[in-house]
């Protein structure tokens, strides 16, 4: 562990070696920026004692991004990872440990733990707030690595309507309409998005497309109404529908695969501002996620397989914000979550109930100190209750420099699959059993003579606990010069009771019954540096993250000389040396980005180039020693460079943009099927400013 801390500081040094950039106006502006995710209420960015990354609408537009995954992939320290959808890895923790919020409410519908970020089109996004490090103290489960809050709520002073369209390689199309209408008492926002692609097939694989053709539509709306000067109501809704058409090849022939994915949510918030000091908020949130998949033999048209999955989530929540004296802002609240799942692979409809309470004090003892202490208690009917405290503080060293530190707990609840899945793979013959059903399923299989031997006593499986972490973050932010800023962050996460699959019995057919156990302990730590520099029309920024990860049990074995490898030269088996332990799979030690933008205000041109580098990472364990060690077990490091060029016409009403993604056509489809090589897009948008409106 000391070694780890040492390497952490060593990398901190390395990170400094890198450099980066921004413009003075935007820096000053950003210090006045208001963020909501860190404390559950509006706070000035420069008062919040945790680092918050903000990606604003202009940045998203300048990139020419269509999907949330594209936007996040260019952020320092975030990696896209593909596992049943495109997720994001943060601080070395996989995508199931990051909570995704839409206007403060959790998005549901994760497959194998991944929330597919390509479900979110960015056309109506105003701002994205990213907090790294656990925020379970406010949001409960899943907020273990961090939180990404997608904010669509518009704060514009004027109404407008924007129409835009984009077309690009692989028949990718995107059409958007976004409208904000202001009346004296209301803000009405509506948006519609159509998105699709012909997909693509990489390499000479004729058995299935790499990415299947799909078409998606999103509708979203919000009506914010100021009832009187104390009461405010806000109603919003979102509906998403995606259909895809694919095929794959079985030993006996080709199979057509058609599926649909639906996602909807609705919320109603009622805010009562009793006084300057006291605000109460009542909110109701409902979300439903549904998939349907049907497969047919291409030749006979007979059904091969059909499955569905429906998840529902309902949450009422109350929150009160009370200013006490001058220096305290007390936030407290509670809520209840009811979640249900019914699916082909579950025996009945399953339900989860969680009740929770949270409390937080944001305290500013002096001008220079900001302290936030909070905690949340989650009571659950299926696994032990969780308490997640967090303490964060910041100190202003000077008017331009600030240091911050936080310590907190994060947790992630076992999901439905881990508790209730009952899946028999007919083709291969294995079985997966959720822990609550494991005993029953084993008894049933034993009675039918299908169990050869037990490898684990099934009675040990009954209680699955949540995965829990302790995390430490230390950060410094400030100005290096009038037009240069720097941010540094060191992080350390220790996660225990990680849920893993394990073979619990061998079947007579030679296959296994798998279930889930709390097993692994992992540690991730590293450092992150971001620099910004701006000069006239130029903006230069750079980011770098150094990351070390380990599986504690495996690392102990490595230290004890009990992990073996095959020597590359002699081909003989030998002990894996400690410095050869690379850490967890799918973790790159280095991640860097360099972004250069040029904006001409006089001619309305914007050009930018972004280069993102990811160093090599372990992909798969070929030789069964549980560590990435052979050369063939790694994905080589790579660099992706993206370009965008845009020009505005007619007093900024019209905008034309062209983009080139992956300029140098890097491709490694065996490891990264989601990276198809160079892509071109062109886009046109038109904005109409609404007149004769005054926002109250």
């Amino acid at each position: 562990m000391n070694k780890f801390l040492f390497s952490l500081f060593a990398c901190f040094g390395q990170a400094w070696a890198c450099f980066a950039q921004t413009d003075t106006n935007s820096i000053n502006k950003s210090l006045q920026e208001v963020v909501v995710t860190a404390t559950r209420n509006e706070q000035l960015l420069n008062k919040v004692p945790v680092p918050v990354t903000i990606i604003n609408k202009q940045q998203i537009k300048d990139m020419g991004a269509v999907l949330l995954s594209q936007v996040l992939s260019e952020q320092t320290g975030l990696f896209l990872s593909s596992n049943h959808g495109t997720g994001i890895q943060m601080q070395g923790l996989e995508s199931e440990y990051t909570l995704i919020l839409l206007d403060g409410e959790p998005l549901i519908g994760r497959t194998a733990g991944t929330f597919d970020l390509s479900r979110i089109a960015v056309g109506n996004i105003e701002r994205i707030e990213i907090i790294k490090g656990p925020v379970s103290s406010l949001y409960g489960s899943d907020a273990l690595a961090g939180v990404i809050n997608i904010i669509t709520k518009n704060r514009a002073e004027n109404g407008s309507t924007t129409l835009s369209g984009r077309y690009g390689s692989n028949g990718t199309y995107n059409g958007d309409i976004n409208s904000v209408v202001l009346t004296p008492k209301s803000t009405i926002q509506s948006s519609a998005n159509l998105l699709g692609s012909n997909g693509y097939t990489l390499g000479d694989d004729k058995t299935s497309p790499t990415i299947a053709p799909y078409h998606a539509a999103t509708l979203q709306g919000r009506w914010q109404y100021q009832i009187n000067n104390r009461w405010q109501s806000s109603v919003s809704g979102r509906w998403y529908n995606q259909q895809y058409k694919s095929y794959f090849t079985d030993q006996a022939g080709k199979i057509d695969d058609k599926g649909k994915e639906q996602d909807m949510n609705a919320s109603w918030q009622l805010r009562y501002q009793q006084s300057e000091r006291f605000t109460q908020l009542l909110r109701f949130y409902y979300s439903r996620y549904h998939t349907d998949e049907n497969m047919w033999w291409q030749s006979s048209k007979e059904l091969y397989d059909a499955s569905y999955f429906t998840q529902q989530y309902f949450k009422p929540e109350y929150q009160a914000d009370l200013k006490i004296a001058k220096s305290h802002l007390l936030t407290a609240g509670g809520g209840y979550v009811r979640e249900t799942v019914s699916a082909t692979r579950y025996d009945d409809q399953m339900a989860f109930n969680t009740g929770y309470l949270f409390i937080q004090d944001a305290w500013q003892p002096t001008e220079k100190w900001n302290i936030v202490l909070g905690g949340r208690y989650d009571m659950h009917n299926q696994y032990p209750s969780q308490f997640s405290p967090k303490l964060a503080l910041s100190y202003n060293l000077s008017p331009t420099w600030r240091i911050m530190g936080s310590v907190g707990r994060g947790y992630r609840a076992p999901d439905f699959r881990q508790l209730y899945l009952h899946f028999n793979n007919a083709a291969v013959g294995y079985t997966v059993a959720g822990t609550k059903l494991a005993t029953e399923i084993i008894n049933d299989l034993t009675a039918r003579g299908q169990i050869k031997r037990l490898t684990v006593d099934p009675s040990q499986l009954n209680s699955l606990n949540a995965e829990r972490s302790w995390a430490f973050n230390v950060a410094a932010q400030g100005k290096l010069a009038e037009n240069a800023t720097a941010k540094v962050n060191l992080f350390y996460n220790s996660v225990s009771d990680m849920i893993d699959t394990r073979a619990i019995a061998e079947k007579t057919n030679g296959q296994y019954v798998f279930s889930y156990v709390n097993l692994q302990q992992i540690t991730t730590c590293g450092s992150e540096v971001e620099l910004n520099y701006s000069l006239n029309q130029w903006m230069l920024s750079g980011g770098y993250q150094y990351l070390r990860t380990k599986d504690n049990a495996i690392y102990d074995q490595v230290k004890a000389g009990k992990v073996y490898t095959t020597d590359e030269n002699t081909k003989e088996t030998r002990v894996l040396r400690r410095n050869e332990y690379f850490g967890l799979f799918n973790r790159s030690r280095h991640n860097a980005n360099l972004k250069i933008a040029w904006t001409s205000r006089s001619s309305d041109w914007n050009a930018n180039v972004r280069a993102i580098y990811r160093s090599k990472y372990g992909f798969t364990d070929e030789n069964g020693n549980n560590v990435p060690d052979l050369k063939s077990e790694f994905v080589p490091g790579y660099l992706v460079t993206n370009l965008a060029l845009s020009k505005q016409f007619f007093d900024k009403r019209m905008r034309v943009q062209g983009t080139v993604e992956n300029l140098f056509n890097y491709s490694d489809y065996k490891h990264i099927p989601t990276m198809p090589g160079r892509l071109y897009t062109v886009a046109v948008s038109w904005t109409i400013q609404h007149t004769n409106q005054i926002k109250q």
Partner: protein
Amino acid sequence: MKTTIRFAGLPVLFVLLLSACSKKDDENTTPKSTLVTVTAKNIDGDAADKGHFTLFSLADNKVIPNSDSATTKWDIGFRSTNIIINGGVSGPGAATAQVVSGIFNDLLVAPESGYVVDGTTLAIVDWYTYNRTTHIISPVPGKYIVMRTATGKYAKVEVFSYYKDAPTTPDGNSVARNYNFRYQLQANGTRDFK
């Protein structure tokens, strides 16, 4: 000094011999060490999927015809990823075995206990891993077999490839069910691998 005999091609057989190794520090009555070190290449693990084990004699370093399966002429058999030994439910011999962790060369004395016979569960399990992404079977580094042969001699066996000609990185084109392994047989009946 011991001599290593390399085995090239199936029917051909080199003999190994070795003179006594130097001395054991111990005593008097230690039988003369007769340690044999062999590398066997491309032993068929039923690549044609005919349903038969390939039976192999460690002492003779050769494949034994299936017609001799009911004898103690063979010690170990291969079919797909299953490895049987001549004992228990698999044969009339006295073979027992276990899979141990460590460095093959570093094992100088065979473990005294831990050997099991083939039953409903084979004695030799968990020596390989199957990768679901690449579909490649790989011996787990550091896992090897220590066994007593059909006639009760101690031997250690390490499979280093499951593919024809033992490519460094097997892929979809590699021919599976070809056992490449090395072994040491102590013919004098002791547990010494020195």
